[in-house]
C-alpha cells in the first residue's frame, strides 16, 4: 500500500486558536479505497484538521497535497472542485429550507433558461435518500426533522456531489444501529469505487467494522497510525487517553429502587405516542431503546412540555401534574438533556452562564445572580467532566463538539432536577469522559435518589447502566426487561 502515491497528504499542518494549540505539526495521509479512521479525545483537534482540509478553516502553516499536487489558497469552493466532501459534526444545513433544497443547495438542476426544475429536484432528492435507505420526505422542512434525520440529510447532501475524498465527522453519533448498518454499506460501496474516506468517531467498535487504518490524535498531535489488524480497543484507548481506563460503566448495584417518583398513565401525543404507561422510582435508571423515529425523543418532549399531550396523565410524587412548557417541567423538578446540542447552548455565552441557565430561568425577574457561585459550579463540572480548554470566560461556540455536549450535560446535572431525562447523554463524548458521565449519572441516582430516564441508541450503555429497559416501537412500548434479562439481540428484536 505504501508504494502507491496517496490520494491525499497533509504535511506539518499547524493551527492555533487564542490560548489553544489545536494542531501541532500534524502529518496525515489517505489512499484510494481506504477508510482512514481518526480517533482522539474531545478537543484533540480532529474536526479542526478536517475543517482545514475542507477549506473552511485556514491552516497557520503546512502543506496539503492532493494526488501529488500542492493546494495553494485553499477554500471551500476549491475543496469541492477537488472532490472533497465533508459531513460536518455540527451540520451545515439551512433549517428553513426543505430537505431537497438542502441536498442540492447552491446547485439545483436547472433547464436551459436557468430556471430550477422542481420536479427533477424532488425526484433526485428522493433517489439519493433512497440509496441511503431512509424514508425522509424531500419536501419536509429541515428544521422540523429529528437530529438523526438531519444527519442523514447532511450525508445525502454530500454524497449527491459524488466526492473522491469523503470526510465524515462523527456521522453515527446520532444514528441507531439500522441506519449505521446502511451507512456502512454505502461506505463499503464507495470504498470499492476508490473513494478515500476519513472517518471520525468515538465509537471504538466501529474501527474494526469499517476501518483500514487508524490514526490517533492527542492534544493536537498525532500519536500514531496503525493498520486495523493491530488496533485492538485497549491499544487504541491507551493511545487516545494516555492511561488505562478504569471501569467503563461504573454502576452501583446495591441500590433498592425507592418510592415511585414519576408515573405516566396512558400518555398519548398524537400521532407520535400511543398509550404509554410506566413509572420511574427514586434512584432508578430506566433505559429506553428504539430505532429511529420510534418515539423516544417525542416521549421526552411530551414529558418536558415541548410536545402537546393529547391524552393521559402524568403524576409526580403521586400528584397529577400538567406540563405545558419547559418552564413548568423545570419547576416540577424535571430536566431534559436534548439530543440536539445546537438547540441547547447559547453559543456566545461563556461556560458558567450556559451551565446555570436552567437554574436562572427559575429565579424571579429581578432576582439577583450570584456570579461567584456560578463560577464555582462551572469549575466543578469543568473538573468532573474534563471540559477542555478549562477557560471559564470563553464562549461555548469555540469548544469542540464533545466538550459542548459536556456543557449541556453539566447544565442538567447542576439543575437539581429530581427526574432527569437524558437523550443520548454521551453523544460525541470520548471514551475516557464517557466513564465520568456514567459515574455522575450513577451518583445522582444512587446517592441523591434522582430518577433517570436514559434514552440511548447504544445498547452496551443501556445494558450496563439501566435498572430496567423499555423498548419502543411505533410510539408504543413493545417490551420491558429487568436488569440482566436483556441482550442486544432481544432489544433489537423487540424494537423492529
Amino acid at each position, binding site marked *: 500500500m505504501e508504494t502507491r502515491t496517496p490520494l491525499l497528504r497533509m504535511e506539518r499542518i499547524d493551527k492555533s486558536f487564542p490560548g489553544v494549540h489545536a494542531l501541532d505539526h500534524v502529518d496525515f495521509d489517505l489512499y484510494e479505497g481506504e477508510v482512514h479512521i481518526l480517533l482522539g479525545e474531545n478537543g484533540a483537534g480532529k474536526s479542526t484538521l478536517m475543517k482545514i482540509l475542507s477549506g473552511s478553516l485556514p491552516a497557520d502553516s503546512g502543506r496539503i497535497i492532493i494526488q501529488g499536487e500542492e493546494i495553494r489558497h485553499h477554500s471551500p469552493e476549491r475543496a469541492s472542485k477537488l472532490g472533497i466532501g465533508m459531513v460536518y459534526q455540527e451540520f451545515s444545513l439551512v433549517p428553513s429550507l426543505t430537505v431537497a433544497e438542502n441536498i442540492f443547495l447552491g446547485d439545483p438542476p436547472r433547464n436551459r433558461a436557468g430556471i430550477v426544475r422542481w420536479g427533477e429536484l424532488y425526484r433526485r432528492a428522493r433517489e439519493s435518500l433512497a440509496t441511503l435507505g431512509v424514508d425522509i420526505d424531500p419536501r419536509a422542512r429541515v428544521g422540523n426533522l429529528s437530529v438523526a434525520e438531519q444527519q442523514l440529510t447532511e450525508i445525502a447532501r454530500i454524497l449527491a456531489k459524488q466526492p473522491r475524498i469523503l470526510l465524515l465527522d462523527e456521522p453515527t453519533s446520532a444514528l441507531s444501529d439500522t441506519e449505521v448498518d446502511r451507512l456502512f454499506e454505502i461506505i463499503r460501496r464507495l470504498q470499492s469505487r476508490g473513494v478515500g474516506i476519513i472517518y471520525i468517531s468515538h465509537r471504538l467498535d466501529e474501527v474494526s467494522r469499517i476501518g483500514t487504518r487508524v490514526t490517533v490524535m492527542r492534544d493536537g498531535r498525532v500519536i500514531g497510525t496503525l493498520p486495523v489488524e493491530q488496533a485492538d480497543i485497549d491499544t487504541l484507548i491507551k493511545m487516545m487517553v494516555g492511561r488505562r481506563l478504569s471501569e467503563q460503566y461504573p454502576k452501583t448495584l446495591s441500590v433498592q429502587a425507592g418510592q415511585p417518583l414519576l408515573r405516566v398513565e396512558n400518555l398519548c401525543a398524537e400521532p407520535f405516542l400511543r398509550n404509554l404507561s410506566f413509572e420511574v422510582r427514586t434512584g432508578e435508571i430506566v433505559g429506553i431503546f428504539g430505532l429511529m423515529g420510534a418515539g423516544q425523543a417525542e416521549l421526552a418532549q411530551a414529558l418536558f412540555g415541548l410536545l402537546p399531550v393529547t391524552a393521559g396523565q402524568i403524576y409526580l410524587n403521586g400528584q397529577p401534574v400538567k406540563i405545558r412548557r419547559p*418552564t413548568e417541567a423545570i419547576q416540577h423538578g424535571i430536566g431534559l438533556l*436534548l439530543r440536539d446540542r445546537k438547540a441547547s*447552548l447559547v*453559543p456566545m455565552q461563556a461556560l458558567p*452562564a450556559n451551565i446555570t441557565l436552567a437554574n*436562572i430561568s427559575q429565579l424571579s425577574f429581578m432576582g*439577583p445572580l450570584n456570579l461567584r457561585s456560578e463560577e464555582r459550579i462551572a469549575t466543578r463540572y469543568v473538573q468532573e467532566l474534563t471540559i477542555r480548554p478549562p477557560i471559564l470566560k470563553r464562549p461555548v461556540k469555540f469548544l469542540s463538539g464533545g466538550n459542548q455536549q459536556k456543557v449541556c450535560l453539566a447544565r442538567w446535572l447542576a439543575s437539581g432536577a429530581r427526574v432527569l431525562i437524558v437523550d443520548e447523554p454521551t453523544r460525541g463524548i470520548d471514551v475516557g469522559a464517557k466513564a465520568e458521565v456514567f459515574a455522575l449519572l450513577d451518583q445522582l441516582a444512587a446517592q441523591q435518589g434522582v430518577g433517570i430516564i436514559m434514552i440511548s441508541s447504544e445498547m452496551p450503555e443501556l445494558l450496563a447502566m439501566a435498572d430496567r429497559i423499555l423498548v419502543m416501537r411505533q410510539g408504543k412500548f413493545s417490551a420491558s426487561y429487568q436488569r440482566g434479562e436483556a441482550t442486544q439481540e432481544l432489544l433489537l428484536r423487540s424494537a423492529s
Partner: protein
Amino acid sequence: MSQKLVQDQDLGVQVVGEPRFRRFRGSARDLLIQSGPLIALFLLAAYLASATPYFMTESNLVNVARRTSVLVIFAIGQTFVILTGGIDLSVGATAALAASISAVTMTQQVNVLGIKFGPVGFVEGLAIALVVGLGAGLLNGLLVTRGRIPDFIATLGTLEVFRGAALLVTGGLPVPSYYSKAEKARNYLPKEVVSIGSGDWLGIPIAAVIALSVTLLGWVILRYTAFGRSIFAVGGNREAARVSGIKIDRTKIGVYVVSALLAALAGFVLTGRLNSANALMAGEENLNSIASVVIGGTNLFGGEGGVFGSIIGALTIGVIGNGLNLLNVSDFYQRIIQGTIIVVVVIFDQWRRRRFGV
C-alpha cells in the same frame, strides 16, 4: 505570546481534576480588540481637536455632553431590545407622545373622562411621562409576543400611531402654546423640567448625570439579574432559552418596556432642553439610537454586546455632529458624512470580529 501558550499546552495529558486555568491571559489583547469603537472615538476627537480650536473648549465639551445625553438614554433602551434580537423603531415617537402629554398636563388644565386636573407640577409630570412610556412599551411587547408580529413591523406600526396620538394631544402646536383654550393654563414649564434639560450640577450637565445613571443601572440589570441573563439567552439562541425554561415572552415584553420607559425619560429631558414639547420632536432619534448601539459593537442579531458600547456609539454620533458644525460643513453634507461614518465604523467592526473571532 502565542509561543508561550503553546508551550503550556505541551505539558501533555491533563490529569483529571487539575484543570489549568488561564483566565487572565490575553486580556490585554482582548481589551484592545474589544475597544475598537473607543479607539475610533478617540481618533475622531483627536482630529477635531487639531482641526478646530473650539472643539476642546470647556463650553463646547459641556454642550456635546448635554446634547448627547438624550441620545444615550435612548440608546440604552435600544440596547436592551437589540440584545434580544429585536428592534424598536418607535422610541422617537414614544418620546414625543410621552413628552407631549406630560407637557400639556404641566401647562394647562385637562379633562380626562370628566375628571379635571392640572396644571400639574414637575413630579406628576414626570410620572405621567413614564406611565405613557410604560403603556407604549407594554403595547409593543404584547404585539411582538402575543400578537406574533415581527419586531420591525410592530414598532413601525406603533411609531405612526404614537406620532398621530401626539399630534392629536398637542393639536399640532408646540407646548406650552399661547393658543391654549384651556380654562386654566400657564405658559411655561415647571422650572425643574428646564433645569434637568439644560441645568448644571457642579459644572456637569444634569442631563449627563441622568444618562450616566441610566447606563450604570442598565449595566447592573444586564449583568447581575435573571432578567439580564435571560435577555442574552433569548437573543443568543431563542430555542436554547426556551428549552432551558427561560420565559421568552416576559423577557421580550420586559425589554420593550425598558426601551419605552427610557424613551419617555429621554423625551422629558429633551422637553427641558428645548423648553418646549411638540409632536414631531426626537425625529432622528430612532435611527441614531440604533446606530449608537451598532457602532458600540452590539450584535444586531442579538446575544452579544452591552450598554457601555452604546454610550461610546452615542458619543461618536454626537461628536461627529458637533465637529461638522464647528467646521462649518453644510447640513446637506453633514448628513452624507454622518451616514458614511456610521457605515464605515460598522464595516470595520465586522471585519474586526471576523479577523479576531471575538
